[in-house]
């Protein structure tokens, strides 16, 4: 069954794919000891906080199930909910634009900014605008975009890329942040220390001037309410609210999956999201706006609805649940792979377990051996910690397995791996052949002399021996032992 929302399904473009496969990128990330320490410390801290505040909620499992059901319902009714949202936003004085992919979205936003006559914009932290590479596009058009979220500011000043959905500068410690501020922030005190309060004050002074002069702000959205045309952003710092209220023009770029039917649905998500993301009972700032209100906030409001591969993901029966994601990043914080490699290894702006499914679903896969997004579904030991942590119960491990199958089907039957898997299946589908292979494996001990294999293992098996010894079969197989000791094979 496919769901068609009225636009030809486009594949996702923009910053959704890196330039090399995960194992190669991870190799370099793993060698960075400082990165491993920063990530280990930060993820462990957030994990502990989240576990504490989740344990306080008696009906957490019911909330998760409610979240899952609301999202499943939204995906089933997406076309009509989006039309309702457009109607309500328009009725309240806003303008709605539809963007098929990152190219269309960037062009729409740049044209809207140019129409205001402004050559700079301030930004609320937003994954959708990271996904489409908006800042880079605007820069090429002569428009300067200033990130106002503290961590996004650190990343922007450091000419870096975000490595976490919620905490984009998680890979930096406070000394590294101080050094970035000293090198890149105009007018910063030369004796700045790495005390968090001092760093925050430096950022505040830097940003205040921008808030008071900027004419245009660009945001994303955590949710949109279809029946009232209301957009919403949840945040911790209040910088987002400055952007949402002070400038004359507000442009919001939102993935089409963020829509919710009614205000009542927020009851569920405003409980699930803060506890899962920052480990707080409630986030400090929740801003909502419906169109424009004369004399109160921006006088012009544009909403850009972004597809960028979401319709393709929606058409995938298993994959569509990845669109349920509320970007809390709980799965990143519990993931043993993410904790060790960090977010950059995933290439996409969506890292971690959800990124490993969402990125290939949005861009599609090629079947190529070295295709970066084809490698992401394999960047998991399938330990299942992400599924347990997900506030909307996305079965990420099952989705990873499903995407591996899709990659294998695209790659075709002629790869070395496909041939060896087929040979294994041939051997294992016959009890006689399997028993014989078990007996033959005993010969393996003759390939070892004084604890060393006579011939080195070929790739990819030498990946095992880089840190692990190989078990050498000894004595009888179990089935031969059973035959000798219990006689009757049934």
């Amino acid at each position, binding site marked *: 069954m496919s769901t068609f929302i009225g636009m030809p399904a486009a594949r996702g473009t923009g910053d959704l794919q890196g330039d090399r496969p*995960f*194992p190669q990128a*991870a190799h370099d990330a*793993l060698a960075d000891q400082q990165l491993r320490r920063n990530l280990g410390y930060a993820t462990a801290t957030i994990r502990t906080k989240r576990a504490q505040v989740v344990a306080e909620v008696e009906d957490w499992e019911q909330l998760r199930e409610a979240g899952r059901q609301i999202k499943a319902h939204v995906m089933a009714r997406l076309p009509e909910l989006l039309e309702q949202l457009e109607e309500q936003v328009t009725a309240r004085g806003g303008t709605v634009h539809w963007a098929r992919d990152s190219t269309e979205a960037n062009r729409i936003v740049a044209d809207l900014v140019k129409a205001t006559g402004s050559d700079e914009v301030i930004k609320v932290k937003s994954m959708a605008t990271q996904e489409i590479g908006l800042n880079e596009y605007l820069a090429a058009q002569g428009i300067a975009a200033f990130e106002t979220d503290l961590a996004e500011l650190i990343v922007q000043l450091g000419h870096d890329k975000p490595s976490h959905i919620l905490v984009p500068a998680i890979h930096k410690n406070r000394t590294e942040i101080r050094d970035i501020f000293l090198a890149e922030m105009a007018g910063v005190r030369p004796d700045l220390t790495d005390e968090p309060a001092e760093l925050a004050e430096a950022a505040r002074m830097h940003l205040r001037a921008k808030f008071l002069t900027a004419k245009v702000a660009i945001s994303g959205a955590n949710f949109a309410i279809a029946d009232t045309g209301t957009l919403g952003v949840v945040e911790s710092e209040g910088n987002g609210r400055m952007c949402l209220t002070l400038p004359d023009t507000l442009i919001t770029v939102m993935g089409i999956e963020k829509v919710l039917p009614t205000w009542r649905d927020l009851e569920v998500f405003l409980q699930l999201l803060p506890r899962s993301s920052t480990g707080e009972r409630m986030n400090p700032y929740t801003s909502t706006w419906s169109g424009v209100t004369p004399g109160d906030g921006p006088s012009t409001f544009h909403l850009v609805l972004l597809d960028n591969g979401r319709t393709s993901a929606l058409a995938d029966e298993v994959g569509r649940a990845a669109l349920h994601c509320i970007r809390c990043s709980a799965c990143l914080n519990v993931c*043993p*792979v993410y904790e*060790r490699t960090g977010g950059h290894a995933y290439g996409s702006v969506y890292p971690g377990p959800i990124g490993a499914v969402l990125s290939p679903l949005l861009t599609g896969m090629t079947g190529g051996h070295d295709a970066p997004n084809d490698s992401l579904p*394999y960047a*998991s*030991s*399938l*330990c*299942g*910690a992400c*599924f347990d942590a997900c506030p909307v119960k996305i079965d990420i491990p*099952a989705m990873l*397995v499903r995407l*591996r*199958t899709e990659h294998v*089907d695209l790659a075709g039957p002629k790869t070395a791996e*496909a041939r060896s*898997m*087929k040979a*294994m*299946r041939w051997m*294992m*589908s*016959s*009890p006689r052949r*399997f028993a014989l*292979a*078990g007996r033959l*494996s005993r010969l393996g*001990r003759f390939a*070892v002399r004084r*604890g*060393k*294999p006579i011939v080195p*293992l070929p790739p*990819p*098996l030498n*990946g*095992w*021996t880089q*840190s*692990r*010894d*190989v*078990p*050498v*079969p*000894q004595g*009888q*197989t*179990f*089935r031969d*032992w*059973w035959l000798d000791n219990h006689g009757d*094979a*049934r």
Partner: protein
Amino acid sequence: MKVALFVTCLADVLYPRVAQSTVAVLERVGCTVTFPADQTCCGQMHTNTGYQRDAGALIRHHVEVFERALDGGADAIVAPSGSCVGSVRHQHAMVARNLGDEALAQRADLVAQRTFELSQLLVDELNLTDVGAYFPHRVTYHPTCHSLRLLRVGDAPYALLRAVAGIELVELPSADQCCGFGGTFSVKNADTSSAMLADKITAVSDTRAEVVTAGDASCLMHIGGGLSRIRAGARTLHLAQILASTRAHPTELIDEPERATR
């Protein structure tokens, strides 16, 4: 209870003592154990690596073999592996449905309902915790991911271990963290897998345990391969081998099987 042993391909070929110990424990608590000799592999490696069509052939074979065992009077199917039971319970029917074979999916569901991981069978089905074991060593337990999160075996392995006479059970720090095995993940993403293993080995070493145990020979092969590589003092033994140990026939602390370094 009449129990059909689902030995798992790994225990059959590489860790026969794990399977022998499973038989010994089950027989000691009064079960009649049969071994359907036509069994091969549950297909988990094929499924998890993306080869569902190849897995489908192995799943069909597994279902046919253990359907016959149930028809022949077995009350339950038991395996010394959380991971392989997890595959039977959570993947067999799903793969069959993905391949468009609803009839096989329904048969797989019936087999799955009667398939248990060893500690679940003993504690949840047979209501046993004391199986008469004696093992006078310092032991730590690694709750493998699929036992912990896929099968939710919960406290069952701890309950069994606490009832072992002479045992000194010590808690493993960050026990719920994956050891990094993940089947073909360990070779496809060998660097990340090795980094995860290094942290698990540090945690094991910190306990100063003589033995790290678990309900999965595959995870123990991984952890044991790493312990052996760095010549760490601790060694691996499957939960079944500790439960099989008695005063009359104690399980000895030998490296099993022997290992080759690079």
